[in-house]
């Protein structure tokens, strides 16, 4: 083979082929379909590994400077000067992301084989998983904005299919619709952004656009608007405030789907997009005349504060949730807020690093939670669990590893990636002390709600008869847990920052060689960030132990009163949106209905019909059939004409 990079097409197309085979031929046989899907996913993973070994780790290939494109490509669309070609982009970023997607995805698929064993629609489920993997890989390898947008929408479709997998349940159907519609809202802005960039710069090719923006100010005064519009897509897909409402509801899907959405795909797509298009934000921001009041702000400021607000709000909401999956969902929101904030602080590298580590430990946490739910026959309330530690040792140990990683305790992965973000907030040039304080507060809250979950569900005494007789899940489910736990533990130390640093835009502060160096790097590079992050985690854990160590029921509602109620109801966002929709959308619908009923149908259609019919009825009276009446009328008409002509 002269062009070994062409095997990247296999990574992309294998899941698609698996989906096609499953949906067309083998859907009825769930176990066989599962096998096809898992094999395809694993093969994609292995090929991604091979690609990484061939190009990513090869210093001479220098993908950071010259991203590789597959030699095999085809023109998908050519309209005038616009050319959209389908080829795959290989650089450090896409190779890493492909590894995360296929790796974590494979673990989740294997786990699903155990989790969905009794589901009669297992074939359809695995078809959906394959489609999801394919769409996400499409985003990862995309070389132009059009291709990116197509796969972006495909991710939306496949998430709709999977969230609504148990469509017989009304809640699942509603959640799927909600996720789809909220995403559409953000995608609308994204599409406008793409059109704007195409219109101003004349190209949708990422590489071409980047070169163009380096040389000229192709976006002119619209650079700020373009940045914000692109960010709109991220708002929807990565569930940032104010479009975060779909993510917790998406918990209605099967638990492995939640793991997939929250870890490797979907929400990661938003952050990946920001990193991929980060060069747009490096141009000096300029605003058109009507938005002149924004002068002095850059889109990055909006991004940073949106991320910070999401992180804080979601962490607060998580404190008072009782559903094990919902706690994890809000924790994902909060961590996504961190990543988006990091991009906003001009540090896309740390955001990407956190995305990778988060993919490992969040997938682990969801799968472990799924193991608990599965063992307890779909019980999700943490106040009906308790003392699972002794009965489910593997789940317990892995969940603990995931929790510690999420809370950011060294030497687990979360500590290192979170530390980079905290350090970015402290940075004298781009940082902001307010955001740093916020991020530390969120770290403390994270630790608090995660250990609340651990203490209530896994320690203490059984709060439910079923929790006393529960049994550990089978190896199909615990195996992926162990693998993910291993990576959650070490992902911070295997050199992802150095690897990503090969890309010019994703460079990291500080440099470390060797394992021992990496272990202590955060303390050397930014001791304040590392120290406060660690302190926040410990404080949160201690507070959780004090309140929930032996609790039989939640003591917080009594202590906080109304505030706890507000937190439990998620700040009433759903209700506020409901009201807003009724005020605007419903009012519009009612006006349109009134117009349709009375103006168009009443006046227009029925009016024309009524007038004609009435005139007809009146004129019918003239048709007597009597010859002499006609003769008389004729004569009278002739006389009238005569008189009228002679008068003038």
């Amino acid at each position, binding site marked *: 083979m002269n062009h070994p990079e062409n095997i990247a097409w296999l990574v992309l197309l294998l899941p698609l082929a698996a989906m096609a085979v499953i949906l067309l031929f083998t859907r009825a046989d769930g176990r066989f379909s599962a096998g096809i899907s898992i094999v395809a996913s694993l093969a994609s993973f292995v090929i991604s590994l091979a690609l990484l070994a061939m190009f990513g780790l090869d210093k001479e290939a220098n993908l950071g400077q010259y991203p590789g494109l597959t030699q095999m490509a085809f023109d998908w669309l050519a309209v005038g000067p616009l050319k959209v070609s389908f080829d795959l982009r290989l650089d450090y970023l896409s190779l890493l992301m492909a590894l995360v997607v296929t790796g974590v995805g494979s673990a989740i698929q294997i786990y699903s084989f155990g989790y969905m064993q009794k589901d009669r629609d297992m074939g359809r489920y695995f078809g959906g998983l394959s489609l999801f993997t394919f769409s996400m890989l499409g985003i990862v390898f995309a070389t132009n904005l059009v291709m990116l947008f197509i796969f972006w929408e495909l991710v939306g479709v496949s998430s709709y299919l999977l969230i609504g997998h148990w469509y017989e349940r009304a809640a699942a159907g509603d959640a799927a619709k909600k996720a789809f519609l909220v995403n559409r809202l953000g995608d609308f802005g994204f599409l406008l952004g793409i059109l704007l960039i195409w219109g101003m710069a004349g190209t949708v090719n990422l590489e071409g656009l980047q070169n163009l923006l380096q040389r000229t100010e192709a976006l002119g005064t619209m650079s700020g608007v373009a940045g914000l519009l692109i960010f709109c897509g991220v708002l929807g897909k990565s569930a940032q405030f104010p479009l975060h409402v779909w993510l917790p509801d998406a918990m209605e899907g099967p638990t492995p789907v939640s793991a997939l959405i929250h870890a490797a795909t979907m929400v990661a797509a938003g952050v990946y997009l920001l990193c991929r298009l980060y060069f747009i934000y490096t141009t000096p921001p300029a605003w058109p005349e009507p938005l002149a009041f924004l002068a002095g702000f850059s889109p990055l400021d909006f991004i940073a504060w949106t991320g910070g607000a999401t992180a804080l709000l979601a962490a607060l909401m998580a404190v008072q949730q009782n559903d094990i999956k919902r706690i994890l969902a809000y924790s994902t929101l909060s961590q996504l807020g961190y990543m988006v904030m990091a991009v906003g602080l001009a540090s896309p590298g740390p955001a990407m690093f956190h995305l990778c580590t988060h993919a490992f430990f969040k997938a682990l946490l969801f799968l472990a939670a799924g193991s608990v739910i599965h063992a307890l026959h779909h019980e999700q309330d943490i106040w009906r669990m308790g003392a699972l530690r002794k009965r489910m040792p593997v789940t317990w140990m892995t969940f603990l590893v995931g929790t510690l990683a999420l809370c950011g305790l060294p030497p687990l992965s979360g500590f290192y990636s979170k530390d980079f973000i905290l350090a970015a907030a402290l940075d004298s040039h781009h940082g902001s002390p307010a955001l740093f304080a916020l991020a530390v507060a969120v770290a403390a809250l994270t630790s608090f709600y995660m250990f609340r979950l651990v203490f209530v569900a896994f320690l203490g005494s059984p709060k439910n008869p079923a929790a006393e007789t529960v049994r550990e899940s089978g190896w199909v489910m615990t195996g992926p847990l162990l693998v993910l736990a291993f990576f959650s533990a070490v992902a911070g130390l295997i050199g992802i920052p150095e690897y990503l640093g090969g890309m010019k835009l994703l460079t990291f502060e500080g440099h470390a060689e060797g394992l021992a160096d990496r272990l202590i790097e955060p303390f050397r590079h930014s001791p304040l960030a590392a120290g406060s992050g660690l302190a926040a985690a410990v404080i949160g854990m201690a507070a959780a132990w004090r309140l929930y160590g032996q609790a039989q029921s939640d003591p917080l509602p009594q202590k906080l009163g109304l505030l706890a109620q507000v937190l439990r109801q998620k700040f009433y966002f759903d209700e506020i949106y409901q009201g807003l929709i009724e005020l605007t959308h419903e009012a519009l619908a009612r006006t349109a209905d009134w117009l349709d009923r009375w103006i168009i149908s009443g006046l227009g259609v029925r009016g024309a019909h009524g007038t004609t019919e009435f005139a007809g009825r009146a004129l019918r009276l003239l*048709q*007597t*059939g*009597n*010859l*002499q009446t006609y*003769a008389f009328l004729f*004569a009278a008409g002739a006389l009238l004409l005569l008189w009228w002509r002679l008068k003038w």
Partner: protein
Amino acid sequence: MSVGLEHYLVVSLLLFCLGLLGVILRRNLLVVYMSIELMLNAANLALVAFSRFNNRLDGQVMVFFIITVAAAEVAVGLALMVALYRRRQSAHVEDLTTLKL
């Protein structure tokens, strides 16, 4: 008193109005038909009068044609009326309203 064009025209007008009133008011189909002939002849009279006063003959030639055609028309009209009477046993215009909606 010499007889001028206006006298002829007034007679023609009176004849026409008589015919028209007959068409509008009389019930019997035969009488209505005769009234129509009256109106036709009123027009003939006017034509002949104009022709005479203009010293041109084409008006009178026209009248010959009209009389010929009217004779043919009467033959067709009377035949229709006889057929109608045979079918309906009536020659009254009030009875002939089947064209009404």
